């Protein structure tokens, strides 16, 4: 069937796929051809996609670790510090009653750890995104998949071909 002429001005191209397998096919092809700056939109995460893209492990876990540890430190510091700030004896117990403070330490560990994790996600995923994303299509949140390829005219044209070849339902300029 007739395909519209590629307009060189376009910075990128998006391929819309009905099926996961078509998407994977195109993805493999693009990777093979050494395309970079690919963006894959998929209603749900899928390990096949991850396998092909094969990106490094998310650094979010670092945020979690650091958050949790500083949480622990804060919890104990808080409890011990305030107890020493004004020494009051209750029930004949020592001023610094560590066993009791474990609870505080634990809860702050979880709290700050969790918040740090979320922060890590937002930072790494560059959220919130205020501007419209190039090539995003509302159907990507329903049941369609999409690949956005950015690059110079030549690359874009090549990408478009690959996408079509892989069986994209639509291939549109960004």
């Amino acid at each position, binding site marked *: 069937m007739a395909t519209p002429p590629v307009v060189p001005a376009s910075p990128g191209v998006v391929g819309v796929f009905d099926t996961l397998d078509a998407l994977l096919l195109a993805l493999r092809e693009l990777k093979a051809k050494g395309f970079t700056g690919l963006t894959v939109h998929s209603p749900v995460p899928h390990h096949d996609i991850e396998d092909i893209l094969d990106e490094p492990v998310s650094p979010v876990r670092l945020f979690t670790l650091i958050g949790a540890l500083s949480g622990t430190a804060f919890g104990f510091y808080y409890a011990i510090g305030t107890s020493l700030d*004004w*020494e*009051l*004896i*209750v*029930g*004949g*117990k*020592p*001023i610094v009653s560590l066993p009791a403070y474990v609870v505080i330490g634990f809860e702050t560990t979880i709290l700050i750890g969790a918040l740090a994790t979320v922060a890590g996600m937002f930072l790494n995923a560059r959220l919130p995104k205020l501007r419209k994303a190039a090539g995003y299509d509302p159907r990507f949140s329903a049941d369609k998949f999409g690949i956005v390829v950015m690059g110079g005219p030549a690359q874009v044209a090549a990408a478009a071909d690959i996408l079509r070849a892989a069986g994209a339902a639509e291939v549109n300029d960004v």
Partner: protein
Amino acid sequence: MKRRKFLQVAGVTTAGLAAGCGTGEGEKWLPYLVPDENLVPGVPTYYASTCRECPAGCGILVKTREGRPIKIEGNPHHPVNRGRLCARGQAALQGLYDPDRVSQPMRRQGERWIPISWDEALQQVSQALAAAATSGQDRVAFIGGADSGPTDALADEFVRSFRSSRRIRYEAFAHEPLREASRLVFGTASIPRYDFGAARYIMSFGADFLETFLSPTEFAGGFARSHGWHEGRMARFVAVEPRRGMTGFSADEWVAPEAGTEALLALGIANAVFRQGRARVTGGDADALRGFLARFDIATVSRQCGVASDTIERLAREFTDAEPSLAVSGGVALQHRQATQLNVAVHLLNAVAGNVGRTVTFPGTVWDRLGTFADLKGLVSAMDAGGVDVVIVHGTNPAFTAGAAGFASAFSKVQLKVALSSAMDETTALCDIVLPDHHPLEAWGLYTPVSGVTSVQQPASTPVHDTRQAADVMLQLARLANRTIGGGAEDAQQLVRRALGADANQELQRGVTTTVAAARPVRLSREFARLSFGPATFDGAETGLVLLTVPSVALYDGRGANKGWLQELPDPATKISWQTWVEVHPQTAAAASLHNGDVVTVTAGERSVEALVYVYPGVRPGVAAMPIGRGHTRYGRYATGGSNPLSLLGDVTDGSGALAFAQLRVTLTPTGRRVPLATTEGSPRQHGRGIARLAALASMGQAHEVHEPFTAAERRAIARADTAHREARYTLGDYRGEHPKWEMAIDLSRCTGCSACVTACYAENNLPVVGESQVQRHREMAWIRLERYFEGETEGTDFQVAQVPMLCQQCENAPCEPVCPVYAAYHTPDGLNGQIYNRCVGTRYCANNCPYKVRYFNWFDYGSPASPQFAFPGTLAWQLNPDVTVRTKGVMEKCTFCVQRIRYAQNEAKVSNRALTDADVQPACAQTCPADAITFGDARNPDSEVSRRKRDERGYHVFELLNTKPGVTYLTRVVHAEMAEAASGEGH
């Protein structure tokens, strides 16, 4: 007495007198623009005076702050009460500040009272008096209470000056039978004086000598001295009565004869004494007595009384073995048709045991001059016949207590009825004019309870309202009627000062003068033999229960009824407050399927009252007991609850003309309603948890096995840890340095359960009175409470009653402290559980975690006038102790060991730059305890009294196994009994 306090009393009273008896004049001086040198803000001033709540005449010190009395304490110099005071005495303060007091002269118009001026009122009365006097002899009558000294003489003179001899000193509890018995047996119509302190063996035939009988505070002291366990010795106390009340709780043995046969039992015992050849009478008396007593052969007596004859023999033996012993009788509860006979019998018992002149003496007392119920009846019939034109009633309420004499109806026939009264009680309400009287704390007087003891009564405050002292009113009335009485004295103060003579000021400072009065020697008279002795009879169907009307330790004859402190004070026997109950024996209750709180109608003939059932093992089957004092129709907001058993009585009298308080058999008919009892009682048994411990005298000294929860190794480890903790503690900020460790020791062998400590705490610490509805929910606020547990089989009479004052134990390892999220509960450096009211947010976790359950929560805003539950209405707010916070709604509170007193003493010591001694600090409860059961002091000082008592072999801590390390040590109560193992369970 504390040196400091004494100086204050001395200094200030003198100066005060110079300034015309001026304490500060209430509000007027508060700005202190012109400060009075005797009125230092923050420094209390003490006035010595005399308690007039009952005829006993205890000496008191009235603590005033900024010109207002805020607390009443015993006068340590006084021979009667030796610095101690009962609940009623301390509550006199609430009479002074009674929100329902009559505040100005008033004239009655139908049911309404119209205020009038003093002049107008006095005019009317004096004219009426003059008219009555001119119209004939004896047309004026004056009804007063027990009194003595110049004011008493004045009253006589006053009546006489209006050509009348109708003057009655009317007391509901006048103990006429006892006086009459003295006349019949010893030829002197006098109330004896008992020396409980000397007695080695005490037998009481229904005399509640620790509650209301004659001079309870004095007796409690003596009783504790003799009956309290001391170095292996203690007197034995046998209670012989059909109902075992608070006094009976201290008894080692309870003998419960058929109601009305106590006289026979006493005679039987006396007879046994002779037959055992132990009588200590000689000569003609001996023969006469032997002959007379032979009529009461033991077998018959045993049958009549329902007491085994070997018991009678044994009592006779024990009673005479101990030297000296003491038998007392004359209690109101057993004032029945044979009351005189009972007292005669007991006198004889004392005589044969040789106690007369030793534990029983006849110095002459204020009771000797009281009128009898018969005298009152005489006046009543005179009034009924219209023979009296003017009646003046002063300080007594016959309309409530003498309903049996038909007082009210006769009284209303009198033309002019004048009340010299400070309360709108039933009698005052019947009067035409009320000339409001000073409260005793505002008045002058000299009172002689026992000859040789002259007790001063002087104002501790300027009058709260526009009132005048009765004596002054009499002087003014006489003057207006152109008569001169009181030797032309200006006023009562002048009368008193004249009587005191030159060194009046010293006497006003000490508050009492004691001269050794030679007790009148007595000889046996034979008159008693003419009496007929037999079981007392009771009106009503044989199937009915014999009704005993019991004087209330809190309300006395009802005069205490409008005092919140006394209404809310749990009755020491039943632990019920605010309500009127009827005690029935478990068997009786089971038979009639009655349960606690059932509302029953108590019916005697046409008359009937309602009461709540309380199933009580302390009464004989076939006997029902009701407390006197509640069920007022007037008298004030606190007084009108409950019902009045006296309204059941007919005007039956005994041989001495005394009202037979026990004269009826009654029937109880359930109304079908049930009301929660306003009681503090949870479980009446302590389930062997060793809270209030008893030990048999026999077992003392021997090592009795102690349940030890820890092994020796564990104990050592614990000890090491403790010392480590303490050391660690003493290195901390405030805790560094040598602080005293405040502790308390309570000797249960002395404690009688009288509950004076409870009222002392209310007074000292501004405890709110929460009312019946709240007590029904166990929300009473008493920081110290008396727990009363029955020990042993309560079906019969062979059980013991274990009582223990429970207050904050000020634990070293206090469970209440660590659970408070906001540090409102914490440990002070001197070993107290601090409770910071204004930090408390009210989680109530501390109260949950307190094993002794001595923390109390402010469920409502008792301290705020805006709140519907405001606990200090009207002038009652003046009673508040300025040194103690009035707590707000939603905070926890508890005993503080009267920390305000501790701090005050510490400051005093610092100011006068000397070391603090034990004598400087005393919590209110310890200070007032009539039995001296409570000791307080610094436990870190090994020589302090509290330290010594802590080391006593009887010492124990409640719930020791919880390792709370309480600061209160209890000393096991020792009893002359073989049981007590049940109760001495060591901590479980």
